């Protein structure tokens, strides 16, 4: 995703490791991958199978129910499209934050993280509007299996967005002081993952119309 930035980050990252606090720190990296990055990838592996389980169930049911295509037409596709755009923009800003952090520019990184948070908030706002609109039309989570899947999958995703926002906010406060710069990469990887999940959810739940 951001190989160039990673390559420049490596030396800075190693100095950061040597001076990290005694509790959350790396002793030594037997591989060339920093321990924190390794941890976050294994974390994402476990997240992939959680969403994977839900998506697989949905796809199997969807194949059995071609009529769900018409139900999907009741979702607000334009709102979902705008949200996709917003979320992808937030991926750009978190990459910019990572790049700035790798170059040691902590103020710039902190600003880009604030922009990411802003995009996340817009995403959550639009999502809340969509839920309100759908529920007002009677498409509640118990209105049928399609809507059950719709609310549990987008709901779980929204919880992950919220969790990511909390993590970015907590980290942003340290980054603004010039601390924990290497961790920007880790929240960034997580944030990209949440985006990618949305890239799957959007066509599955909004776009695919006919079985």
């Amino acid at each position, binding site marked *: 995703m951001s190989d160039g930035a990673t390559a420049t980050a490596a030396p800075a990252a190693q100095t950061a*490791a*040597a*001076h*990290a*606090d*005694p*509790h*959350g*720190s*790396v*002793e*030594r*990296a*037997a*591989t060339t*991958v920093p*321990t924190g990055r*390794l*941890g976050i990838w*294994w*974390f994402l*592996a*476990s*997240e*992939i*199978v*959680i*969403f*994977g*389980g*839900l998506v*697989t*169930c949905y796809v199997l*049911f969807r194949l059995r*129910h071609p009529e769900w295509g018409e139900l999907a037409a009741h979702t607000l596709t334009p709102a979902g499209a705008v949200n996709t755009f917003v979320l992808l923009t937030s991926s750009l800003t978190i990459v910019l934050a990572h790049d700035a952090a790798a170059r040691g520019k902590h103020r710039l990184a902190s600003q880009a993280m604030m922009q990411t948070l802003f995009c996340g908030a817009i995403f959550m706002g639009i999502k809340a509007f969509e839920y309100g609109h759908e529920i007002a039309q009677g498409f509640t*989570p*118990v209105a*049928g*299996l399609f809507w*059950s899947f719709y609310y*549990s999958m987008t709901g*779980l995703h929204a919880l992950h967005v919220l969790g990511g926002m909390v993590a970015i906010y907590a980290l942003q406060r340290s980054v603004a002081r010039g601390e924990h710069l290497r961790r920007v990469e880790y929240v960034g990887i997580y944030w990209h993952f949440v985006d990618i999940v949305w890239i799957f959810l959007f066509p599955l739940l909004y776009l695919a119309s006919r079985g």
Partner: protein
Amino acid sequence: MNPVAEAPAIRRPAPPAPAAHGGDDAHGGHHEPESFWRRYVFSTDHKMIAKQYLFTGVFMALVGGFLAQLMRVQLASPGAEIPGMGAMHAGQYNTYVTMHGTTMIFWVAMPLLLGAFGNFLIPLMIGAKDMAFPRLNMLSYWTFALSTVVLLGSFFVPGGASPVGWTAYPPLSANPQYSGNVWGVHLWILAVALEMVAFLMGGINYITTAINLRAPGMRMKDLPLILWMQIVASVIFLFSAGPLVAGAVMLLLDRTAGTGFYNPAAGGDPLLFQHLFWFFGHPEVYVLLLPGLGIVAEILPVFSRKPVFGYKMILWSTIATGLLSFVVWAHHQFVSGIDPRLAAPFSLTTILISVPVAVTLFSFIATLWKGSIEFTTAMLFALGMIAVFLIGGVTGILNGSAAADIYIHDTYFVVAHFHYALIPPVFFGFFAGIYYWYPKMFGRMMNETLGKLHFWGTTIFVNVTFLPMFVMGLRGYPRRVYDPTQFSSLGDMTLMQILATVGTAGLLLSQVPLLINFFGSLRWGKVAGPNPWRANTLEWAAPSPPPHGNFAAQPSVYRWPYEYSAPGRAEDWHPQHLPSGAAAEGSRS
């Protein structure tokens, strides 16, 4: 063929000096935390967290064992008055079945095998100061502790704990109108989900630590087998727990929000839950088996003074077991109306998985061949694990083949099989491990006489309990029956039920020597010294018990962990951290 000759890389270039990494000076002041709370309760030290998992797991084992005994009393004498409880009713029996299974798998096996031994051994055996993420480690234990409170708390809510079986199949679990239980099942789902989250955090930590914090000179193929098995077990858990978490969320939504994921009337499918559950549930068997085998793999070479036979074969078998474990789950559904064209491949993969496991067991037996075997309690339990597990493994072939399984499904044969498959890794493995690593954990030796009493009691009564169940199962005795007197065909098997009940009572009593030994030796045990067994792996290079930060100086690694009785050496052992030529210090200290 001399196994020593195939020991990988006796000669190798000197490992890089530890100072090259420079990280050690930066936080060299690894101070022992002083306050009681930081030191014993909210500790980030992997050894303290291991002990927290250990004591929680042992406590829950007593709870689970007590529930088992209550069930056995009911089956041996239906309607009998139990002192302090009165006669048992059907709902209570179902609760005990559910909570016994849940407790033993998630709150005993997981914390003891992965929580206690994983946490204790991984940093020590790779020469690290602590886990990669010590605070995540602490969070993992306390999430687990919370899940324990939720699980035990569910006994005291209105309606009592969950009665819907440890597999929680819908529709029974999905709609309170069938089970009559609202809060017990809610809390059960919540407790299991929290437990999963705790061990996901733990697993990420174990894998990352073992991959990245290895001492200078330690390659992945110098890892002791138990660490490989802990890694593979953690990876299996990581990739299988997700679907169950998704499935549990859907179950909870079905129960609370009124969705219909598992309700055919709403377009859902109850079989979906079985797939999600067993996609996790069957790999979980190997999550528990592998660390048990790993403990045996560490103990056999030490007490037969021989290198482990076929290190690489065991390693690849472990990985193959891990991969195959993901393609066997539907053998739990041979009688759920599964398409026979699907039953055949699932039979095949199920039976196929016995091949890598058998390779591992045969390698263990070959390790013993012509060794100078010393029958310590740890060694006895390791050998017992192999022997008892063989019965579980062989009977698994019958369950795995669809044709035979359709006959024995949901009988006591299955109950006997999975107890023979799970008790060896979970309990024999744990006992072997605790007798072996107790000196390192607590700095003192355990008593061998009490240990042998414990071993023989346990081994005899496990068989007294579960061997009759094979016979009962083949004669058609169904499992999960509350009152066998309702079926005239089961009347002549009462004697075998009584025998099994005597077995569990004996099994519980056999644990008394262990408890006496464990707590007594804390105070009166002989002082152990750093390496009482003359073993090679790195944990024995640290003081007993190791201080905060484990090693006085960063150890380097010069060879694989199983170099015993190498020709041309004065000693029959050669610790991993000693340069070639250096004599092992002291013999038995």
